[in-house]
């Protein structure tokens, strides 16, 4: 399978008040279509910074990131918004839905943003929500949803416009274990079925039950890449 995400010697240095902090240090990895990767590590290990660079929200200080064969450095600042809109699907920690749009409208928002809002796509968004068990909640506002339901809507929003990459930043942070597993499973299923490259940032190793590969980060570096199922299971057992 082809590589959708390719990161070569990527680094990020934050400079503030004369001091420098190396948030990401010489990271190289790739993610294929249909592959779901867990990016794990303690707080401050550089996971979110790496995710922000993959989403073209932050420029790397060094190295190269290619998404779907597009070198992010070569994309003009103005075009990055369009690139992100089309190629990236995003799920954040919590409270990331638009509060004044209903569940269906939130999902459809990505279609409207990408000028893909058609009758067929409207139906597709509805079906996606039905599949995620939200059929009774389609016309309610986010404030009437539970945390797990909100994250399911957020997942639906991140894939509805058919991006090549789906990124999730601690999507289970505000959920209890049972709901968290449900959310991750839904996420993994959609990535596998729709052949997306998926990366989930989490500090909780237990959430890696459904991932295909784990990148462990520490002090800005990927210290281990584990794709063996048994190794993943044993790592989770240690958590």
């Amino acid at each position, binding site marked *: 399978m082809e590589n959708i995400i390719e990161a070569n010697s990527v680094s990020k240095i934050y400079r503030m008040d004369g001091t420098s902090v190396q948030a990401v240090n010489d990271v190289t990895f790739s993610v294929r279509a249909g592959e779901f990767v867990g990016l794990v590590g303690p707080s401050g290990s550089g996971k979110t*910074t790496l995710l*922000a660079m993959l989403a073209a929200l932050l420029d790397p200080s060094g190295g190269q990131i290619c998404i779907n064969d597009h070198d992010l450095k070569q994309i003009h600042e103005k075009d990055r*918004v369009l690139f992100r*809109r089309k190629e990236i699907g*995003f799920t954040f920690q919590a*409270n*990331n839905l*638009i*509060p004044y*749009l209903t569940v269906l409208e939130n999902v459809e928002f990505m279609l409207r943003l990408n000028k893909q809002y058609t009758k067929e796509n409207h139906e597709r968004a509805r079906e996606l929500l039905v599949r995620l068990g939200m059929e009774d909640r389609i016309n309610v506002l986010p404030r009437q949803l539970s945390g797990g339901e909100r994250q399911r809507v957020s997942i639906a929003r991140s894939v509805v416009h058919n991006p090549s990459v789906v990124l999730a930043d601690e999507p289970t942070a505000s959920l209890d274990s049972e709901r968290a597993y449900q959310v991750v499973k839904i996420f993994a299923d959609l990535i596998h079925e729709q052949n997306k490259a998926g990366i989930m940032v989490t500090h909780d190793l237990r959430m890696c039950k459904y991932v295909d590969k784990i990148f462990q980060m520490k002090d800005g570096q990927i210290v281990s890449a584990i794709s063996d199922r048994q190794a993943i299971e044993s790592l989770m057992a240690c958590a």
Partner: protein
Amino acid sequence: MLAFYLSFKEIWRNRGRFLLFSLVIALITILVLFIAALAQGLATANKQFLEKLDAELLVFEKNTNTSIPTSQIGRSKLPAIRNVQGVAAAGSIGFSTATLILPNNQPGLDVALVGVDPNSPGSPPVLAGRELLTTQANEVVIDGIIASRTHIKVGDTITLKTIQDTKEKFFNLRVVGMTDGRQYLFQPAIFLPYRTWDTIRPQGATTGGALVEITSNIVAVKLTNPADLQTVAARIQSEVPSVQVVDINTAILSLPGYTVQQQTLNSQQFFTLLIGILVIGGFFQIQMLQKVPLIGVLKAIGASNLIIAHSVILQIVLVSSFGVLLGSLITFILALGMPPNVPILFSGNSILTAVLSLLLIGPLGGLVSVRQAIKVEPLIALGLSS
């Protein structure tokens, strides 16, 4: 389109909050419109006669600071003014006050008594009846305001009371015509031939039989070519002794208290609009602060600054326009219940300017919010900052 979708959905789903804010804008609108209408009403009550005068220039006695009450211009100067090249017509106008006696023991109505030369500038056109014809006849033309307040009609005889030599004098005059509203210094006007006016107007003791020249306050001058305003004014000043010539607008500005009154009301209006800008700006800024995380998410998922800025501006325009419309409607309804003697007038440029200013203060007040929205970084969605 997407910007409109976002703004409309937000307003609709939070309609209670936005309605309350529209009501605040409506209250500001009511205040601004009432001040504007009051300014317009007071200005009209002051200057209506001069504004409608069919003349371009007014001649005052020299060194009177173009003050109509102070100026006393002898009628002997009238022929000299009429003879100046470029003058098409000229007519004396004298102002004083009288009390119109009303039937059934109703309190009398104070009126402006305006002495004019028939068929000359100053003599009003009539809507009903006929114009004044001779310089000395016991007949008057009343303005529309008197007609509407007293129901006096053409053909009626009215009684005017003035004080002459400390004694009350009553004069019966026949109404021969009715003109439109021509108030002067807040009083509705009665027009009469200048000789009759000179007999009726309030005055002190006579000068022991000596012949005294009849005076008027000003002379209104109509020009052959209105474009020659400056030239003819200079010509009159050089050819007629001891006079000062100004155009109508200058004369209006010199009306007693007019400029100060308008400045006061305009300042009030300006400060109310300024308060409006601050209130609207404050509201949308507070709202923007609450929306920073959401805007971060919107930008992170691909919404451009253009979409965000348009949606903020549209929201401000929609909410403030609704508020202004609501306020204008309430003002209109309130105005219908106002007694006729309250000098408010909902017409003219000042009202149009007030409405346009009110529509502008929304976007102006919201500019800071738009700037704030544009500055929000999408990294906020990830809990990061550049």
